[in-house]
């Protein structure tokens, strides 16, 4: 590891990288602060920009958005009792009550410090754990890789929506969409239906603009008129956090950072799960559980450190196995691969300087997030009240311009529009969209390994049960499916019981 730190630092500490980190952190904070705009939407909108960059500045820009998104969501949660991002909901529980007590600045400061600590903790986890996991990943063959893909897809299909069966159907659709275009092994066109432009396949960024961004515009049809205007509260307190409060926060921050990192490593789980789990743990361990829900500093610190601790940890399965921990990092995978960087051990050896630059960069991203948070929080707070009338057309223009700029043609814009309509229909049918994204991202890797493994075994499916790693992943899939089904049954029973009581 040490041999890469020197060259990696040289690659990282350039004006270009510092510039893109700051731009990413700023955009991520602003997007996440606005209720209704999500981090995934922001990453999708700005992904086409990274196509013109090299690997390090491109990844720094996206990581800036991703990490700052973790903190930005807390701004509106604290100020207007509306989480900017879903994972800021736990922060809202105590953040807004503390703000109502006249301590808005203090609440924002706690959220910022906890987010920074969680982010750096997670970045260090990635730095030390990533290469070790990659070494294990290097021992995997094609059959094992297929099982890894299957494992990732199964978990994400299982946890993404209300129904696991619907999640699997969505994942199949995503995998099928990845088959459109030239066959990676024979070179023949597949599923192009006579549309010449499809021979290159469907561009991920274009499809995502439709699936996740334009569909949100269609969803404005569900918006109530009074939701168009949000007024941010003024920040008039001195923002002082006492020594006693710092002491009380130390343990929940440390524990929540660990929980967030562990949750982040598991594909399919994300910042929301981590922040709620950490919030409950902190409440159970606190000497003042009665303060939770009424402006507890421990509550804010626990939720915020956990949701930012997910950021680095989700990159561990992504960079080592190519399995994205959540939808947002799935998009980052395409930004890496476009620069010829494929997940696995080679990323930590032959491309070690670039990889370590990215991992060290994650620490830098968190430090710049702290700086921007300290000096620009007032601006982020103002952004919360940008009216939807202005925001909506601007997002559409960004989406169209982004879709056009990928291949510089209007065909891609029409593809994005088609995907927006498909996503709208999927919403009506309660079909989750995240497994489609994962299917599209993992499609090529899943199919190539599936076919290669069968070629090696002369068509015998026994190759998928032939090694210890295959069996481990098979057991993991069975256990995960069992746990998900059990969880869903429990949820349903609880809902039925609640329904009967009402």
């Amino acid at each position: 590891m040490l041999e890469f730190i020197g060259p990696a630092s040289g690659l990282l500490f350039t004006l270009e990288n510092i510039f893109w980190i700051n731009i990413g952190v700023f955009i991520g904070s602003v997007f996440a602060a606005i209720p209704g705009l999500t981090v995934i939407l922001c990453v999708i909108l700005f992904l086409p920009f990274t196509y013109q960059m090299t690997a390090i500045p491109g990844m720094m820009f996206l990581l800036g958005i991703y990490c700052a998104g973790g903190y930005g969501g807390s701004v509106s949660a604290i100020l207007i009792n509306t989480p900017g991002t879903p994972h800021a909901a736990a922060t809202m529980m105590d953040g807004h009550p503390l703000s109502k007590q006249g301590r808005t600045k203090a609440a924002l400061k706690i959220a910022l410090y906890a987010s920074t600590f969680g982010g750096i903790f997670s970045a260090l986890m990635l730095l030390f754990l990533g290469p070790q996991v990659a070494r294990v990943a290097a021992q995997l063959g094609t059959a094992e890789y297929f099982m890894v893909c299957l494992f990732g897809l199964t978990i994400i299909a299982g946890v993404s929506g209300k129904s696991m069966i619907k999640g699997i159907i969505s994942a199949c659709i995503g995998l099928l969409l990845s088959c459109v275009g030239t066959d990676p092994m024979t070179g023949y066109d597949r599923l192009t239906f006579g549309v010449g432009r499809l021979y290159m396949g469907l561009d991920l960024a274009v499809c995502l603009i439709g699936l996740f961004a334009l569909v949100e515009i269609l969803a404005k049809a569900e918006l109530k008129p009074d939701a168009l205007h949000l007024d941010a509260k003024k920040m008039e307190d001195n923002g002082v956090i006492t020594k006693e409060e710092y002491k009380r926060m130390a343990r929940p921050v440390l524990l929540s950072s660990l929980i967030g990192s562990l949750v982040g490593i598991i594909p399919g789980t994300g910042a929301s799960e981590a922040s709620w789990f950490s919030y409950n743990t902190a409440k159970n361990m606190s000497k003042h559980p009665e303060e939770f829900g009424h402006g507890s500093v421990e509550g804010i610190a626990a939720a915020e450190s956990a949701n930012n601790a997910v950021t680095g940890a989700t990159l561990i399965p992504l960079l080592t196995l190519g399995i994205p921990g959540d939808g947002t990092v799935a998009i980052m995978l395409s930004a890496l691969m476009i620069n010829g960087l494929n997940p696995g051990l080679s990323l930590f050896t032959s491309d070690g300087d670039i990889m370590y630059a990215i991992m060290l960069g994650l620490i830098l991203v968190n430090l710049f997030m702290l700086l921007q948070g300290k000096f620009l929080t007032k601006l982020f707070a103002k952004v919360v009240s940008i009216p939807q009338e202005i925001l909506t057309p601007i997002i559409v223009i960004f989406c169209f311009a982004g879709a056009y700029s990928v291949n510089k043609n209007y065909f891609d814009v029409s593809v994005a529009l088609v995907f927006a309509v498909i996503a709208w229909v999927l919403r009506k049918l309660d079909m989750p969209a995240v497994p489609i994204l994962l299917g599209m991202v993992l499609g090529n890797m899943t199919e190539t390994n599936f076919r290669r493994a069968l070629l090696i075994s002369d068509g015998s499916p026994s190759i998928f049960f032939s090694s210890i790693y295959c069996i481990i992943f098979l057991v993991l899939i069975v256990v995960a499916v069992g746990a998900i089904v059990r969880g869903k049954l429990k949820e349903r029973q609880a809902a039925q019981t609640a329904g009967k009581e009402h």
Partner: protein
Amino acid sequence: MKQMIDRVDARLDAWGEALKRREFRFPSDLTAGIVFALVGIAMLLAMPSQVTATGGDVVDGRAFPTLLMTVMLACCAALIGKELFKLARKQPITWKTVNLLVEVKALVILGILLVTYLLSKYTGLFVIGAVFCALGFLAFFRCRKRSYYIITLALAVGIWCAFRFGLGVSF
């Protein structure tokens, strides 16, 4: 002018109220199962014409998509079976309520998106589409603040300039 806008607003409000009351519901899981089963069957039928089979290979380009569609059909069968079983046992099935006002508004938004796309494509000037988009959405939200129009139009032109002159995207 103001009176005319008020009259249009009043008429839109009346239509909105009428549409708001009209709701219909459908069995979402059963519908999803049927829709995706049809998609799966259509894809399997289209496979021979859409994917060239390479004779002699143990696994060709058809193997993976065929496997996917088979898994999808199995899931659809499970979904449909589950709902039919519930119906037979007279247990409650999953329903989805759709409000007509929301759907009409979504269609209007889709219309704005389509016109923006067509204007940009056929004039060859993205900025024309961008300006239409800004005006279209401000009208959709029934915005009457002049400052919002100025800000949004300035931003629309600004984004075009950033892509055109900053990133060198010729449109």
